[in-house]
């Protein structure tokens, strides 16, 4: 029996030791974040400027929301940060976020990129647009008004690569199609993609590499993956095409944040979000080649080369509600 007892004692001690590590010193602000890109750098800069310390916990948007909800009043968190507007909308609906009264935020973040009820704000913008191989596609082949919808036409048969339906990027794009065209038309569009034998790839980088390799002519990805690949290999044979410029604008999503309703440090938490939307914009977005939400801030050089574009306003309420319909719709027409 001795080894058994020893093992149990060891287990217990490890457990206690573990707890000891955990409940040491706490930072002023704790951030639950689905975003990972270079957060540390931005937060360190914030601490340097303000003296307010920040700690963050990575995870997936939906799981973190689940955790915040289960923790209720006991939550140690102060901020919920996501890479998708739908999850922010849902957190707002579930009463997890506090209403902020910040003229600074309302001035810095355009109305199209924030919650009308001031519970959350977009902090960076990611465009999901059409990417093509210039050796195989002439940009005049694209429809400028309804670019995404036009890819359902038979002329794109066997030429497309897209992301899987499990990915929130795809879901919010389809949700935007439903919002713009209605469910029936959106269904026809997605069905058209499927009938065009679109190659489904569960990774944006690999979609771009496939376009470069010539195995597909056109794909839809987030713009910053292209920027990242171009930084490694400037000769990559992939060019972005800003979709829907003659129509409602390119589909964008945001990475954004809100202050938790159960935060015990709302004031400093709000200050961090304000800083990220203003002075901290470049530190927050540049590392990942994203577009600043604040119109007064310049994007970094690589993506500036992609040119200016009009974007479709975020309608997170519609997205959140339509996201579910989008998944359903893709299921119905067999979009994997």
């Amino acid at each position, binding site marked *: *029996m*001795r*080894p*058994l007892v020893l*093992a*149990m004692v060891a*287990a217990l001690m*490890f*457990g206690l*030791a*573990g*707890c000891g*590590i*955990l*409940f*040491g010193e*706490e930072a002023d602000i*704790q951030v639950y974040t689905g975003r*990972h890109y270079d957060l540390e750098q931005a937060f360190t800069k914030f601490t340097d400027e303000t003296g307010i310390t920040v700690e963050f*916990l*990575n*995870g*997936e*948007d*939906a*799981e*973190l929301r*689940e*955790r915040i909800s*289960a*923790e209720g009043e*006991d939550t*140690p968190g102060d901020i919920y940060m996501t890479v998708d507007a739908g*999850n922010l909308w849902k957190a707002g609906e579930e009463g997890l976020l506090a209403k902020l009264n910040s003229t600074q935020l309302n001035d810095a973040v355009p109305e199209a990129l924030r919650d009308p009820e001031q519970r959350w704000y977009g902090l960076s913008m990611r465009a999901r647009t059409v990417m093509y191989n210039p050796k195989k596609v002439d940009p005049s082949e694209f429809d400028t008004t309804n670019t995404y919808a036009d890819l359902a036409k038979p002329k794109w048969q066997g030429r497309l690569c897209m992301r*899987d*339906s*499990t990915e*929130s990027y795809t879901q919010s794009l389809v949700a935007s199609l439903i919002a713009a065209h209605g469910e029936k038309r959106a269904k026809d569009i997605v069905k058209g993609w499927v009938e065009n034998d679109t*190659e*489904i*790839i*569960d*990774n*944006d980088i*690999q979609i771009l*590499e*496939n376009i*470069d*390799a*010539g195995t597909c002519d056109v794909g839809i990805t987030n713009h910053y993956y292209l920027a*990242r690949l171009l930084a490694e290999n400037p000769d990559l044979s992939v060019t972005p095409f800003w979709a829907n410029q003659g129509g409602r604008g390119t589909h964008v999503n945001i990475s954004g944040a809100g202050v938790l309703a159960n935060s015990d440090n709302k004031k400093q938490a709000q200050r961090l979000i304000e800083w990220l939307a203003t002075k901290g914009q470049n530190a927050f977005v540049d590392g*990942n080649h994203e577009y600043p939400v604040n119109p007064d801030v310049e994007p970094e050089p690589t993506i500036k080369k992609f040119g200016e574009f009009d974007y479709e306003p975020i309608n997170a309420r519609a997205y*959140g509600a339509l*996201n*579910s319909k*989008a*998944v*359903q719709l893709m*299921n119905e027409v067999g979009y*994997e």
Partner: protein
Amino acid sequence: MSTTAPAPPRATPERLARARRGTGRRFGWTLLVGAVAVFVVIPVAEVTAGVLTPTPDLWARLWSTVLPGMLGDTLALMFGVTVGTLVLGAGLAWLVTVHSFPGSRIFRWLLVLPLAMPAYVLGFVFLAIFDAPGPIQTGLRAMFGQDVWFPDVRSLPAAALVLSLALYPYVYLLVRSALLEQAPATFDAARTLGASRTRAAVRVVLPLARPSLAAGLALVLMETLTDFATVSYFNVQTVSVGVYQVWKGQFDRAAATELAGLVLLFAVAVIAVERLLRGRARYHQKGGRGRGLATVRLTGAHRWLATGTCVAVLAAAFGLPAAQLLWWAGGDLLTGATNLLDPRYAGYLTNSLIVGAVAAASCAVIGLLVAHSTRMTGGKITTIAAHATTVGYAIPGVVVAIGVLIAFAHLDTALEALGVPGGTGLLVTGSVIGIMYAYIVRFLALSYHSIDASFTKVSPAMTASALSLGASPARVLGRVHLPLVRTGVVTALVLVTIDALKELPIVLLLRPFGFDTLSVWTYQLASENRWESAALPALTIVAVALVPVVLLIGKDRLEGAR
């Protein structure tokens, strides 16, 4: 599995068996197993209780759209992985245990290495090599033009292959330990009676190894059921993928857990089939531990064929992915972007080690106690409770994690209602205790199956003699059972440590602020497609996971030498 008709209470086979074994009802031990079962089932029930109140709309919609396809994919994948792991796991175990050929002694333990390679890493590397932009297809296009044919790499067969390569060590380990523990007498007897080696193998050894084979397969299939990352690389839509889709895409956790309940049904079916496969057969060691089967020296082309097979499997399942990771990590080193010097690296490593060690120790202790209790009481209730302790393995980690969160939240509310101010507060807000709890729920099956497979080979007569000589059940555990099943215990320790090191969703969701592990770090980088940077932590996981594998091997070799 007994189909005995109701008989007078005094003469049921079970009672007779108990009387023969000298194991009467021991309520304390039954209670212990029951308590463990309740402990494990609570968080699972917290989330999957939704199955009892199904949402008709959800099921009708799913049934008319994706569900048939998901069921088909899930079954097809399970079938493919069963065949793959059986051929690889049992075949290789047989090959290296009873044959000698160039390198056979080294392959005996090298073949366990793929255990250290997470399936999602293997899948990713597989795609990096074989997908259209990868070196193979690029080369083919350069030679034969743009339209050269290549099999579809994002397909179910490819996913089954990758999962089989990643998971076969479970079958391999358990079958090998069965072959080692098997008294050679039966095999030799068959041979003396004129059976050819093949016939003796198929008719005698295979049935003897059946419990281990079944246990190994059960683990493999449960792992396959919960896999999300690997199958999504290959566009395979299993029910687990559906769980994620409904939850994250439709923001409906309640509906998602109903689907998770379906995964649970699959798992219960797997457990039932495993029991069926074992049947009522009980094979026990006579006397002490077996000396193992005598080895046969392979000659001529067979020798090299055997060596070649082992090399090929190892290269595909371990060598290539490890080389690719090294290549990436090296590239990062050259460009100076390496995170090797990151000061947090040591902290992540320590956290991973703590989590792995504690999880392994807890699971091994509990698994041993449960298996021992089952032997001590042998009643139906105990047996059912013992099986209930293994259900967590078939639940996706993230669902278990949320179950633990909700269970803690309920406990908290209950404590506050009882007047304890603040309840358990600390527990709810993420803690290592929560992670441990979730790990035990999730990985107890690994340890129980390994230990139980060893237990089946301990003759009840042994237990009975010890008990009849007046040893207390606790003493029997320490002095008789533990030494006899230590192969199983060590296997359990190794399997749980490795799985705990690789595990992601539970740590990701339940960890407190500032508690990052290697797998969390790998995930953060990989989720941004920064594979070059992710390679170093991924390699470290592999390297750390190798330590218990090598320990296991050291022990194995000592035994092989006896």
